[in-house]
């Protein structure tokens, strides 16, 4: 019976060379829009792990994020009353030092970088194989 499986294609996604195209509404890393923010500090208050902290710049307070603590739960985006936080479909940025992970508002506004060279595939549901990966 195992012989049948010698002819079925493999199910692994070869990750560093090929990356999955994440669909919309994926809870990845965040991008903050500073022109919409009203400094209500609700995002910092609701964060379960204390990843968002308010930094005082000039007269107003702006949020910065610590990606070491972020658990990607999405509460901050859901509670923001002016829709100033947005998810980006990036989940795998590696940092070399702790300082880079604690982003002050100046870097938070830039959002996470997007890798261009990786081949992206989209997962498609299929009856015979469960999940197939087609090129996006």
């Amino acid at each position: 019976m195992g012989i049948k499986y010698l002819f079925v294609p493999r199910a692994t996604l070869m990750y560093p060379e090929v990356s999955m195209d994440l669909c919309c509404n994926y809870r990845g890393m965040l991008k903050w829009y500073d022109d919409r923010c009203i400094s209500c500090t609700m995002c910092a208050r609701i964060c379960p792990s204390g990843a968002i902290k308010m930094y005082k710049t000039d007269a107003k307070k702006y949020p910065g994020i610590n990606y070491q603590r972020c658990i990607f739960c999405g509460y901050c985006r859901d509670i923001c009353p002016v829709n100033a936080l947005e998810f980006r479909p990036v989940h795998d940025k590696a940092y070399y030092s702790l300082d880079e992970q604690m982003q002050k508002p100046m870097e938070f506004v830039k959002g996470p970088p997007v890798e261009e060279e990786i081949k992206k595939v989209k997962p498609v549901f299929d009856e015979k194989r469960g999940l197939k990966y087609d090129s996006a």
Partner: protein
Amino acid sequence: MSEPETVELLIGPQHPGSGHMRLVAEVDGDIIIKFEPNIGYVHRAVEKIAETKTYLQVIPLVERPALADASNHNLGYILALEKLLDVEIPPRAQYLRMLLCEINRIHSHLYGLGIFGNMIGSSTMFEWAFQDREPLLELSQQLTGARLTYTYIVPGGVRRNLPADFKNNILKVFSYLEKRFVDYNKLFVNNPVTIARLEGVGVISKTDAARIGIVGPNLRGSGVPYDVRKVEPYCAYNEIDFDLITEEAGDCYARLLVRREEMKQSIRIVRQILDKMPDGPYFADKYMKMVNPKMKELVDQSGVLRFPALFTALKPAKGTAISRVEASRGELFYYIVSDGSAQPYRLRMITPSFKNVAGYKAALIGQRLADVPAVYGSLDYFPPEADR
């Protein structure tokens, strides 16, 4: 010269056959005489941390111990909280909650079968079961936005609406899974090695099972027909039609069969949920009124919820509340004591794996040493869930 010598074996945390927990076995030749599980290796004080966080912040905390069925734990906590909050849940939200919980049940049983296969030695079963989790993870991602740690259920309803072509996708995945179950039967369940290894091993009789208090598929594998979804239906389980699976033998093989049949019943439940899903809002009106009107337009357009500002400091009424939920591994019990402030005064969660620890002693005394992994896999014990 003739005194019996027993060897004390520490099947400790760093052992390929024991998960991350400590088991102390005293072995005479090959027969186990005394057996003591020594839990607490991965204790992280979840209940104590919960006393320092607000009610909404406790949700990710509470769903992390049992990773494979995170939303069952989430649901138990929210059901207890909603008794204190006095809020009306719309029926569509109840059906969506049940949908995610049943998907999690299939996921958790696949995980348990995979670990079971690994303990017996059949690494093919392990790889196949873990690969078949992948379509389920992808489905959960389309529904909630995250692959494994959902935080989908909030007090008042759920966080997202059903996406557009979800029903087609899920039906495709189910027909794929049903074909795979046939293969699992051929490879693992009907394999003569598996049957020889598991039949008659680790028997827990009916009276013993009811007396020592093991729960979940272990209890049903010993012939006791108890399932919280039938006894005390929560959400909308009394409107859904499904069977209660029991097996009479009480050995490891019976528990394996119970889990396999429960996966099929979960597929049946999800099909009924998708057919019967009512239309309407997916979040309670009482809190929806408090959302900013600009945000409300966005909510209606995109199908993704925005929270009202009240959620940063939700203050339920003073008092205590309990709730019982059927998680994949057994019955889960929550107890919240609130003193009117924004943080819970006491949160107590009794997880099913904690209750299943008593099953080790009843099942393993008098068995051979080689049965320890078999019984471990069949009880589907998950150390982080038991140690919280």
